[in-house]
Every structure is written in C-alpha cells, then in structure tokens.
C-alpha cells in the first residue's frame, strides 16, 4: 500500500500509469456572507448541484457513486491506496477575497426541513453507526458542519448536535448560534460573532471523531423557514487564494503529514471561506493530482 520510496512513486506514475487529475468548477448560487464559510455542494458546475433529496432526519451515506453527482477519482484501487500529490485552486469574483478552499470527503448528511427547522426542540436522527468497515473506521477524524440549502428564514436559534464518538460514547457539540436569513450554501455555524465556530462544530473534549449522529436540538426562536443540511465529513486539505484570478498550488509530497489519503469511495467536495461577501455567480476552480501504488 502507498509508496515505498520516491523511486516507487515515480515508477507507479510513469511506468504503471497509476495517476490522474480531477477538476472541479463551481458557480455560486447566492452571495456569500463576509467572514463565513460556504458549502459548494449545491452550487452548479462540476459535479452538478446536489439537491440533497433524502428524507428528513435520516442519515444518507454518500460516496463517489452518489446519484446526485460526485467527482471521479479513478475508482477503487484496493489493496493499493490512493493519495493526493498536489492541489490548486482559484476564484473569480468581484468581491470576497481572500478565500480559503478546503477539501473534505463527504461521508454523508442529514437533511432537516419544514417543522424540523421552523420549530425548536429535539429532532431525532436515524443513522446506523459507522463501524470498523466504514470509510473512516468508527468515524475516526470525522467532523460536522451545517449549511443552508436555499435561503434560510429569519431568526437565529441556538443549536447542539448530539452524537456518539468513535468508541460509541455519547457526546455533544458546543452550542452554536445559527445565522438568520443565511444565503444558500452558507455554513450557519460559521461567521464573525460570538458562538460561531469556523468551520467545524467543536466536539466534546478529547473526542477524535463521530460514529453516529443522534439528534439535532434547536433552542430559542426557531428559524421562520428553510432547509438545512448537517454534513459529516473528513477534512483533507486547505488552499489559500489571495485575490481574484490568482491560482495557488499546494504540494503534498513534501508536506508533513504528506500524501493525504483518498480512501476508496471518497466523495471529495469543497467548502470555501470568504473574507468579504463573495459575489453571486462567482466561480471557483479546483484541481488535484493523485496517484496510487502497492
């Protein structure tokens, strides 16, 4: 698995063809919020905009064959393992710079809509806990964030997500304050205010991942309307983009940790931090190279 040496890496690429490049391009459906993060999953482009069509409060697993669109990364290679070699990103928008683009492996999501958003209280989630055979065994390294699918209604309730940690013990995120009238794609747990967390929901002290999402608890004054998506993801890497039109490239071969792994089935997607309010119609381009050996 992996590469035994730099010579092996070169041989796997140049002699064995175990190499590829993937590109992603997205057009923002709505203006972003200054100082907040945006999920690019429901933005049009490559892959196509996801609609998150599952039933409410049911965890839906996703992978690279997800029917709503996923980037192709060369398919499964087990018993070999696939790794990032480099990645680059650029953004073009009249406003919003500088940006951070973060790649995540989207393990799955929970949709909440209708009264699951417009009323407070505990919203119980149905999910089969991730076990030893999961893409990230027992949910190790997984993080959560919540995004708006379409424009969110007024009011900003507080929210806690209850979960099971990697050992199956109960845990709860830190309470965050949601975002009133968030624009489509905005991560409602992020922003420049008290009780905002950028970009992931803090886990209980010492927890290293999430194996099961148990419930979402809204308090205070509920959102007037809207749909939100609770994402369960594995963070992979981050690229800084200083200004519109600039392309930035990051090398993972000579980094530490090096060669971030792309597990078989990875559904690689992107979230974006914007310093200012990124303009509607702004475009994001990401490419990454990968190789596998073993």
């Amino acid at each position, binding site marked *: 698995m992996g590469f035994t040496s730099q010579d092996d890496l070169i041989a796997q690429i140049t002699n064995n063809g175990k190499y590829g490049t993937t590109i992603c391009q997205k057009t923002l459906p709505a203006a972003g919020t200054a*100082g907040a993060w945006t999920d690019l999953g429901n933005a049009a482009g490559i892959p196509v905009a996801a609609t998150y069509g599952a039933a409410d409060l049911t965890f839906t697993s996703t992978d690279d064959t997800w029917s709503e669109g996923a980037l192709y990364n060369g398919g499964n290679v087990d018993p070999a393992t696939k790794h990032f070699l480099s990645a680059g990103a650029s953004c073009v928008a009249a406003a919003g710079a500088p940006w*951070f683009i973060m790649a995540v492996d989207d393990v799955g999501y929970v949709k909440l809509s209708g009264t699951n958003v417009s009323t407070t209280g505990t919203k119980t989630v149905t999910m089969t806990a991730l076990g030893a055979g999961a893409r990230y065994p027992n949910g190790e390294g997984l993080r959560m964030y919540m995004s708006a699918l379409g424009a969110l209604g007024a009011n900003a309730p507080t929210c806690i997500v209850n979960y099971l940690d990697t050992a199956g013990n109960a845990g709860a995120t830190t309470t965050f304050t949601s975002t009133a009238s968030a624009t489509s794609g905005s991560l409602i747990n992020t922003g*420049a205010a008290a009780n905002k967390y*950028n*970009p992931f929901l803090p886990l209980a002290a010492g927890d290293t991942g999430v194996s099961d999402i148990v419930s979402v608890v809204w308090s205070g004054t509920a959102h007037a309307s809207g749909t939100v998506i609770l994402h369960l993801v594995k963070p992979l890497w981050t690229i800084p983009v200083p*200004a519109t039109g600039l392309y930035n490239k990051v090398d993972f071969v000579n980094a530490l*940790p090096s060669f971030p792994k792309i597990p078989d089935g990875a559904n690689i997607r992107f979230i974006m*931090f914007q310093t200012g309010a990124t303009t509607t119609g702004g475009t994001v381009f990401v490419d990454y190279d990968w190789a596998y050996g073993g």
Partner: protein
Amino acid sequence: MSGFRNIKQYTDATTDGKTWTTQFRKAVGSAATITSSYIDYSYFAGSPPANFYASTPLESAEIDLARGIYVPQVDTQYLQNIMVMTNAASATSTTNQRQDLTLVDYLMYYPFFDSDAVGEDQDTSNTITLPRYNSGQVICIAQSASSAIGQFTFTYTNQDGVSGKVSPVIFTQIVAGGGQSANAEISGGGFHPYLPLAVGDSSVKSIERVNFTVAGGGLMALVIVHPLKTFHVAQECRRTTSGNLESYGSAASVDSVIHTAGAPEIKQGARLGIIAKGNGGSLASSTLIGTLTTVWS
C-alpha cells in the same frame, strides 16, 4: 505520555483524528496604526470576538476562552500548521504588507492603567496567578487613544519568584486607538513587542504596580503572554479597480517540524491570538485571516 517520539507518531495523530483545523478572521479598526509598531489582533472585531481587556481595573484576569482562537481543550496539543493572508483596506492600499506576526498564548492581564496618574502607585490586585507556564513576556496594549509620550516603570515578580523587581524606564507612544502597542523602547521609535526587564531577568510571573513619571494621556493594559511561533506574511491581498486590473497577494504557511524544529505546545486552556508588526505602514481597516491546525498525542 506526552508529545511525540518520532515522525510516525506525529503523522499518525492526523490519521487517528487527533487533529483540529480552526479558522479566524480579525478586522483592524479604522484608527491609523504606527508603521513598524505592534498591534494586538485579539483587540479587534471578527472571529473570535474582540477582546478589549474590559474587566476590573488593575486586577489580574484571564481573557475569556471564547475570545481566543478556538482549539480543542485537550492535553499535549501541538501546533501543526498556521496559514494566514492579510486583506488590504482598499484596492490601492499596500500598507498592510510585510507583517511580522507572532502567535501567543495570553496568560494573564492587568487592565486600565492610567498613563496620566503621574507620581501615583498604581498597585495591582493579583486575584489570580498565572494559569499556565511559570512566567511570560509582557506586552503593553493601549485601551484608548493616547496623546503624549509618557514614561513609566513597572514592578514585578520575576521568573524565579523574586518580587519587587523594577523595569527600566519605558516610553509610551502616541496612538490613535486601542489595540496598539503602547510602548516604544525609546521616545518615538525602536519598537519591540515585549517590555524590557531588569538586568538578569528573563520573564515575569506577576505585576505589582505601575508608576508613571511622565504623562501619556491614555489607558493601557499590561498582558503576560507566552510566544509560540513567529512568522511573516509578505504581500497584501487586493485587486485594483482602475487601469490595468491586477491582483496581488500571498499567503504565509508555516509547518511545524518541516519549517521549524519541533512543534510548539498549546497548553490546555490556552487563549490564542496574534500580535503583529506592520512594517509597511498603517494596518487600519485591514483584515487578517488564517487557519490554524493542531495535533495531539
């Protein structure tokens, strides 16, 4: 067990999920800052929220945990990477380029020393002691605009627990607003982030009093910090809006182990923030954004 014994353990921590990436954004206020002097980014709005050192005057205190850059509350945590960019105040502004930045753990502070109280003993009340580390460096942060170049000394307990130590005479500087370093090594220049100590002393456990001999016309806090990592961001991020449209900008990304020996420890309970020296000019209305990644064993 504490720390990492080798590279494998260090990288395995990431695979095992013992890592956290957090992101911050601080927008400097509109008051002009002094070229090559320091500012305290924690003082300004953004995420985390602003820290104005607003508590009981002259009484030792910790800043709120929520006003530091968020990291998990775990033991044996280390800085793996910090990455920053600085956004210009306007399409043509270049004065926020070339910043020297230092990530610090804010240990304890004493707010609201009056730099006009010439001849008075401004005695502190040490209601808490240093929560982390044996001792630290002292920064002097303006809590208001100031109108004159004052002079003061402060009396402290040094790293060995010896009380009654007196600093050399320190000059203040005229600043346009809070959040800026209030001290200069000499009148009108020679900026340094940390206050000078008596000969032979390396750091400070607590502060006992401040004495002004020349009025400075403002308010200031003394803050004991533990420096963790110093780095540099070279160019401001901006896009011109007239003539030939051009984009400028760069990011600074510093990896522990690769770019520097070892990895700085972030102690449980750390209040993290950044102080910065703006070498290109005023940092007014510029924005610092960044990500910070930690690992723990």
